[in-house]
């Protein structure tokens, strides 16, 4: 046990109170509200075809965007860590921009770019690629929102990686590809999974930007958070919280699963 700093009791109390007040209480209130419905009404609220397609869209779009983000994040982190080039510092700080930008701004900017008369849209729409008011648009904007998480998760691990393992691999006759696949990637795997989980979780909860790039049509491009807002607008509080609860449980389950994966990957390779 770490006794360098005294005050274990104090710090732990703060931790638990913090978790209690900021996490447990709101979630318990949510649970309580949804519990007012009764099992039959709860099921009827959360398992309509409209709700199912909203969950599916939310999770699939988030999953795809998190996958893209992880690949892009690895690439960007690699370039930032392994090479020296002009403006590197600037690019490095730009990576965090999506964290600071109000997501509504991102949504507006993306939809303006990809509409028929937008800078990208004027070339893409004639090809039949609709980068806004479509599912593709949702994935695009979620990728933007999640990118910093993926980069920042991988970057420090890359930085702390010594080159001796790589050099040894090369000296022992491994090809560049083998070195990457067998030596570098296993070391990075836990960080990659963390980055994936963070951007995935971020994408599931995202609302502000998606409402601007989605056409918000139920059963088609309506994400689950949008469905919750829609229920609130109809003054169906209990139903809204019920759907929120389902979303929460699903997210928690997936994140727990990802956590297990991450732990395993650590055990096997490090």
């Amino acid at each position, binding site marked *: 046990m770490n006794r360098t700093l005294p005050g274990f009791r104090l710090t*732990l109390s703060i931790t638990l109170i913090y978790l209690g007040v900021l996490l447990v209480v709101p979630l318990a209130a949510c649970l309580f509200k949804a519990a007012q419905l009764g099992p039959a009404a709860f099921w009827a609220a959360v398992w309509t075809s409209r709700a199912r397609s909203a969950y599916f869209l939310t999770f699939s779009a988030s999953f795809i965007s998190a996958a893209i983000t992880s690949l892009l994040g690895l690439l960007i982190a690699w370039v930032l860590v392994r090479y020296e080039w002009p403006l590197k510092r600037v690019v490095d700080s730009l990576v965090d921009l999506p964290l600071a930008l109000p997501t509504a701004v991102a949504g507006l900017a993306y939809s303006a770019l990809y509409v028929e008369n937008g800078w990208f849209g004027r070339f893409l729409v004639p090809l039949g690629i609709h980068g806004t008011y479509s599912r593709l648009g949702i994935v695009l904007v979620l990728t933007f929102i999640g990118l910093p998480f993926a980069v920042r998760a991988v970057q420090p691990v890359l930085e702390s990686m010594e080159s001796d393992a790589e050099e040894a691999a090369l000296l022992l006759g491994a090809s560049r590809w083998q070195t990457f696949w067998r030596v570098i990637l296993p070391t990075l795997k836990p960080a990659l999974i963390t980055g994936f989980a963070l951007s995935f979780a971020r994408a599931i909860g995202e609302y502000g930007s998606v409402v601007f790039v989605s056409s*918000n049509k*139920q059963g088609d491009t309506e994400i689950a958070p949008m469905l919750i807002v829609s229920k609130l*607008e109809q003054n169906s*509080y209990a139903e809204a*919280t019920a759907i929120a609860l389902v979303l929460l449980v699903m997210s928690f389950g997936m994140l727990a699963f990802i956590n297990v994966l991450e732990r395993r990957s650590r055990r096997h390779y490090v």
Partner: protein
Amino acid sequence: MAYSRRAVTAVFLSSIAVAMIAISVAGCGASNSGASSTDKSAVGASVANAAEAQAPTANTGPVELLNVACDPTRELWQAINEQFTKQYEHDTGRKVTIKQSHGGSSSQARAVNDGLEADVVTLAMWPDTDLIRRSGLIAEGWEKRLPENSLPYYSTIVFVVRKGNPKQIHDWSDIVKPGVQIVTPNPKTSGNGKLSFLAAWGSVVTRGGTEDQAKELVTKLYQQTPVLDTAARAATITFSKKNIGDVHLAWENEAQQEVKESGGELELVYPPVSIRAEPHVAWVDENVKRHGTADVAQAYLEFLYSPRAQLIIVQNFYRPNSQGDREKYADKFPPIKLFTITNVSKNWDDAIARFFNDGALFDQIFEKK
């Protein structure tokens, strides 16, 4: 080790106790607490403290009003508040400060129910104001307290089209012609959206059409709507800035503004019939009682019917509704036959149940696909 484990248990148990107290508190207020109740009521509480501090000096000292309004009325209230504060100080010697809160109409209504200390509410739709009546904050029969059913102004839903009206859109049947794309917000989340739907529906049934024909019209309408924005202003941006769609169904005042700002790129088209949009005003009885602002709140809302306020209303493209000014400004607004909610449904509650609730007509349009 032992003592720290005890500490862990103690803290954990006490945090569970805190959680349970909070739940029971939440339970007591459950009938009117929404998901956002915590932050909303926190905001409300601070406003309340400010207002309550002034309560003892009621009727003489400076006073503060909070007007909780719907989203696109910022300019209107800014101009009216300026005039009213001058007038009120001149008449009574009291200094009044009016604070504004703007947001989506129904979320504003919920915020007031959850504790936002509004003295007056000026929301876009009758159901929103009535929601506050249901929570007991506004007295029964509130519509009858002010002239013209508490409607100092009204509006309607009109068409905005591209320059030269290339798709030749003049009536409701024209907007669903093949190849015409429509922009209007989602009826589930937006007042503008609900009014657009009801206007289209009423354009059929108030002119001798059957309900089946009306159903056909609205079905086509939403099949030809590429984007269902969540709120009125977002739909305006989609149509005017992103150039999506051929016709935008919007509030008349919003449409006028949109056309004015487009620099000749957009035009206004008045359909022969449309729905009368009725943004009611009301003071919030329970809140003004507590703040001691009942007289100011009433004076403020009555001021809206004065010629000066009516002129501001006209300048902001709302239709004036005081008896004298309705005729005076008649030439400013093209004649259009307006039907009310009672022409298409028994009342608002009935309309919402029939058209917009889960599984109701609007949902059926999307399920068919």
